[in-house]
């Protein structure tokens, strides 16, 4: 059993909104070349090839297509960071979706693989990238099958490979798949993995693989959803794209809302204007908190993001407002906790995730993450001591020195500490282990204290009942 408007797109709800990347989801055979061609497929590519590459690059820059993987860096600008005159340059597609709460790239790969392929072609043409590697998460068998079949069709029909559509543009797209490691979603770790190594992030600088990436060459790493926007953009133009959403967050974006809502789902929302209240309570979205319960807290941007409480519900999906409020939009993943939620245990499910997924390269993350998990585990099991709660902050500060971002809270008299944080690690896995602990302990300290003073042994029930 699964939710959603259509059985073949589990969890996805259509709604009465513009659809840029999910326009074919209603068709059961949306993943075939036949359906793709019948619904304007590969028209954006044709438009692109009819213009000089620099023009296409400018079109994408003008549209301000924000990266949909988590950092929100504009794709057109990212492409421009490659050094002049250094060849070859590569495109690596990040389809290693695994941030807790995130469910969108998998749907895009399963339901519309040709759209992604067309996006890869447009990006490679515009930025002069001579080979593309499409890295799909290892556990996503169906996505791998759909993309493999689509690539086979596209090669045979002349859309990928030598002299595409009879032009001077040639590109191989190689399907590559991972083998289970969250950290590989970090772009330099992804490149390490693609080179056949352990997927550990590279030391920075250089900050962008656009300078030095795959095999030491300039490499653009783009998220699946980011690339999926390009066919529509080329067909309709930057002005049509920026007419949706706001000036700083144009277009749409895919958002998954999960947890204690009446109708968990994946939605393509209008960027910049849609608020968290719309998403959690709106009729076309999640239709309120389950069982008529109150909202306790929500994670606004994937497991790595500091938590929000009902105080922040009216914030829109706009980075320039969510950042100062103490969190991030990340990968479009909202996890909702209702009033029955056992907060320390909920935090533990996330901290355990990041501790488990630490690659071990940076000591603060390798050791710190593990200790956060152990101490928190002890507290949850009713075996914690008074010193444990301060110890959690101390360990966290060894990963992220200084004030850690959190939301404001009227009831507690807390003022927000803005995002981002300082960090003693190369990548965000270590800080992400701390984020749920820090948020939970800052916003719901009394629940932890009750665990300690009562030495309460917890029976095995759902985290929220």
């Amino acid at each position, binding site marked *: 059993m699964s939710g959603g408007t259509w059985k073949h797109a589990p969890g996805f709800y259509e709604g009465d909104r513009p659809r840029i990347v999910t326009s074919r989801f209603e068709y059961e055979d949306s993943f075939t070349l036949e359906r793709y061609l019948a619904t304007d497929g590969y028209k954006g590519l044709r438009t692109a090839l009819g213009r000089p590459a620099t023009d296409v690059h400018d079109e994408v820059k003008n549209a301000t297509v924000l990266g949909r993987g988590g950092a929100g860096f504009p794709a057109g600008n990212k492409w421009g960071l490659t050094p002049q005159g250094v060849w070859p340059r590569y495109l690596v597609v990040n389809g290693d979706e695994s941030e807790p709460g995130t469910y969108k790239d998998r749907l895009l790969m399963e339901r519309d693989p040709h759209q992604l392929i067309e996006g890869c072609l447009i990006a490679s043409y515009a930025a002069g990238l001579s080979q593309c590697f499409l890295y799909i998460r290892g556990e996503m068998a169906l996505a791998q099958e759909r993309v493999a079949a689509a690539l086979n069709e596209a090669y*045979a029909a002349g859309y990928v490979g030598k002299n595409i559509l009879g032009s001077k543009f040639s590109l191989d797209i190689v399907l590559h798949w991972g083998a289970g490691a969250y950290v590989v979603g970090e772009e330099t770790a992804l490149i390490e993995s693609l080179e056949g190594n352990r997927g550990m992030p590279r030391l920075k600088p250089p900050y962008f693989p656009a300078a030095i990436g795959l095999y030491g060459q300039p490499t653009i790493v783009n998220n699946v959803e980011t690339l999926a926007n390009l066919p529509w953009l080329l067909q309709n133009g930057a002005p049509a794209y920026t007419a949706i959403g706001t000036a700083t967050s144009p277009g749409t974006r895919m958002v998954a809302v999960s947890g204690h809502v009446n109708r968990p789902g994946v939605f393509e929302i209008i960027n910049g204007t849609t608020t968290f209240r719309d998403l959690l309570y709106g009729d076309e979205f999640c239709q309120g908190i389950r069982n008529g319960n109150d909202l306790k807290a929500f994670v606004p941007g994937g497991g790595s993001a500091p938590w929000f409480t009902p105080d922040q519900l009216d914030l829109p999906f706009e980075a320039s407002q969510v950042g100062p409020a103490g969190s991030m939009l990340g990968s479009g993943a909202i996890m909702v906790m209702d009033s029955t939620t056992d907060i320390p245990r909920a935090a533990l499910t996330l901290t355990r995730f990041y501790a488990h997924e630490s690659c071990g390269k940076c000591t603060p993350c390798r050791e710190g993450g593990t200790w956060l998990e152990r101490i928190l585990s002890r507290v949850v099991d009713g075996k914690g001591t008074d010193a444990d709660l301060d110890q959690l902050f101390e360990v966290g500060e060894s990963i992220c020195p200084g004030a850690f971002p959190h939301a404001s809270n009227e009831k507690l008299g807390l003022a927000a500490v803005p995002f981002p944080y300082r960090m003693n690690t190369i990548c965000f896995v270590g800080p992400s282990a701390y984020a749920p602990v820090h948020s939970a302990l800052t916003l719901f300290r009394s629940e932890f204290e009750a665990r300690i003073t009562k030495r309460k042994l917890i029976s095995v029930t759902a985290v929220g009942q």
Partner: protein
Amino acid sequence: MARLSEDNIRLAREIIGRYPKPRSATIPLLHLAQEQDGFVTNEAMSHIGELVGATSAEVYGTASFYEMFKFEPVGKFLINICGTMSCALLGAEELMHHAEGRLGIKMGSTTADGKITLERAECQAACTEAPCLQVNYRYRYRVTPQDLDALIDDLSSGALDAEIPAHGTVATVRQSIPADRGVGAVDPDDVTEGPAWLDGKAAL
């Protein structure tokens, strides 16, 4: 247990040929080895090293980093129950306890008949369909304890054998680049010029 078979060597060479550097094929070839034997054997890792130009220790170094590669036999069906937040909020821990009770094994082990291995997995990107699980990387959504019982019955009786390949096989469709359509991989050291289409003119 074994080095790669003749058919798989052919496939391996095709895969290696797609990359500018052979070592990039390490993970795809490890998947191939796991598909052949159900887990990754030492012999296969030595063989992969020979094919991509790495030592067997380097291949093991890579393989051991990744959750999906197993170095000893696992059950024909690997059940991964998600344990991360969205699933935990909706009963994933209960589901795991139910599975342990039903199968009579602890998380991380295999039933005596070698049929089913039970593991807790991290977020599987199906958060709106919680609690979810995968059997050999095929999804099951909004799983109740009753659903899980029915699933285990079906796995045991062989009713799902056609839908779910034995552990080791992930995708059942492979990419295949036709010889006359492929551009071909080039070692970056041999490239001195930018691509032909960057001449300031439209490609079409």
